[in-house]
């Protein structure tokens, strides 16, 4: 039994490793590669290719837990790297471009949800999924294309910072609403409870810096790693048990560390663990995806792809203008923000875990299809942005 499980995990990890290597070779984001690996060797269609059975890995408890840790540590690092200084230092401009980005893209998401006659809660999930750009894919592409050294990286990173804090709040609200039962008062009560808990966490994060500093002053990297993994998982688990978003709890644990001198060490020591957990998370998303469901959301998918690509390009271009950039660079800001990724999938995982019917099946399938296309499309657009900016410049 244990042997069988070990073999399955071995197949899964090897699949992830191969997919990652392949993505690196062709210069694309690893996220869609991990998802595709999951779809390919998972229990759903396609189950065989040319008569060779492909169902090599089932969605078991081990993968479930590691994937959950993936969400926790993605959000933990989001909190850790969340730059309060950057946000405050440039607050007027970041607030402006963040608002433009939110109004255009979240608005488009709401429009899509209602146009395809989803319920309010379902629409809120869809809006969140199409709204938020992928920090992981965008920052990596920024570096790969050398844009990080250009002026357009300012508004791009500014928008990401704004989105990061908004998604933390949004996750808290949405998980409270999704888990909080039907009525408005019940939902309001659970939103209140969520914010009380998170408020307490935020206070600890804010005032506990000195204690945290001392508590995590381990001499060996091994002990340091274990402490960080232990505390983060413990807090996230406690939050989940209390009916709150484990992701948001992890985000606040991350912010608690961001004010200490441990940040650099965490980046060194804990990042590999995060990368591992996150890879399994994306893979698990693939495992649970039934791509036959994509046929049912094909029109929504097409509409979302077109509308939200245009939406990000437009809102990004406006943001570039707020930063006083020229036409080409402003357009690049828009193109740079097109990739969607990990946070859309975190929202999809929340939807899958909280509801039934549409929330459990249709929305996650939509999110997977959407992220697959948008993470690849975004990267390719950035690599070939000259073609686009030249053409628009000649208008």
């Amino acid at each position, binding site marked *: 039994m244990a042997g069988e499980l070990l073999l399955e995990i071995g197949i899964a990890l090897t699949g992830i490793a191969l997919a990652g290597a392949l993505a690196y070779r062709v210069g694309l984001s690893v996220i869609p590669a991990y998802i595709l690996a999951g779809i390919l060797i998972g229990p759903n269609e396609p189950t065989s290719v040319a008569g060779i059975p492909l169902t090599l890995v089932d969605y078991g408890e081990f993968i479930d837990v590691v994937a959950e840790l993936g969400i926790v540590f993605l959000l933990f*690092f989001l909190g850790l*790297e*969340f*730059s309060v*200084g*950057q946000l405050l230092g440039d607050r007027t401009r970041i607030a402006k471009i963040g608002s433009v980005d939110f109004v255009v893209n979240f608005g488009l998401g709401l429009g899509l949800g209602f146009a395809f006659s989803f319920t309010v809660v379902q629409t809120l999930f869809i809006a969140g999924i199409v709204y938020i750009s992928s*920090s*992981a894919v965008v*920052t990596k592409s*920024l*570096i790969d294309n*050398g*844009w*990080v*050294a*250009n*002026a357009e*990286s*300012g508004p791009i*990173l500014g928008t*990401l*910072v704004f989105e*990061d804090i908004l998604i933390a709040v949004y996750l808290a609200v949405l998980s409270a609403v999704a888990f909080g039962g039907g009525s408005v008062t019940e939902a309001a009560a659970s939103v209140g409870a969520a914010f009380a808990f998170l408020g307490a966490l935020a206070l600890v994060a804010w005032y506990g810096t000195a204690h945290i500093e001392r508590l995590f002053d381990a001499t060996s990297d091994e002990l340091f790693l274990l402490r960080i993994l232990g505390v983060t998982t413990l807090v996230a688990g406690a939050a989940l048990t209390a009916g709150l978003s484990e992701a948001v709890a992890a985000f606040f644990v991350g912010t608690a560390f961001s004010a200490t001198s441990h940040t*650099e060490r965490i*980046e*060194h020591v804990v*990042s590999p663990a995060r990368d591992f957990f996150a890879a399994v998370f994306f893979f698990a998303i693939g495992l649970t995806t039934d791509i036959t469901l994509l046929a049912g959301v094909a029109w929504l998918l097409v509409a979302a792809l077109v509308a939200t690509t245009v939406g990000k390009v437009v809102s990004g271009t406006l943001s570039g203008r707020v930063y006083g950039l*020229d036409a080409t660079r402003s357009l690049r800001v828009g193109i740079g923000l097109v990739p969607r990724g990990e946070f859309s999938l975190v929202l999809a995982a929340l939807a899958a875990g909280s509801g039934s019917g549409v929330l459990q099946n249709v929305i996650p399938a939509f999110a997977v299809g959407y992220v697959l296309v948008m993470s690849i499309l975004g990267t390719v657009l950035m690599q070939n942005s000259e073609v686009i900016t030249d053409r628009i410049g000649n208008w």
Partner: protein
Amino acid sequence: MTIYETEVPGVGHKFELELDGDERLIVLIHHDGKREVYLRPGENEDSEKLFGLTGKRARQLGSILEGAYFQPVEMDDIQVPLGESIIEWVEIGADSPVVGDTLQEASIRNRTGVSVVAIQRGEETIANPRPDVTIEAGDMLVSLGTREEQQAFEELLGEEGTAGGGGVEGGDAGDA
């Protein structure tokens, strides 16, 4: 010179150094220690990646740039501020009146106020030279004193004896 620092979430820190005109040098320090250096020729131009280095290599390059391995000395323009005092390097010409005198005989401190803190003779450096050291032609005398004292010292050595140490004002040899 202004240096702009920005955090790049998930990546590290970015520093922009202003060069001449609109040119900027951009250094990206990744959390894993890797450094990347970009050059942006002008405000509206695209940055070009010049090179990337590991943390260790970057530190070596940094030390080289800092002058830890080789420090060019601009002999015409050397001044190190020490409160009121400055240090000057003065080469003793063959015709200088003090050639052949010991430091005691030349009585430099009594006559000018500067202290000879070292003598460079070819490859050799005589630090804190004793009074009975003889001054030879071609010696480089390192003297400590105020501007006025240095002036008097140069006059003592005679105009033709001051191959170096012109005492140029306003130089920024301190940055060299």
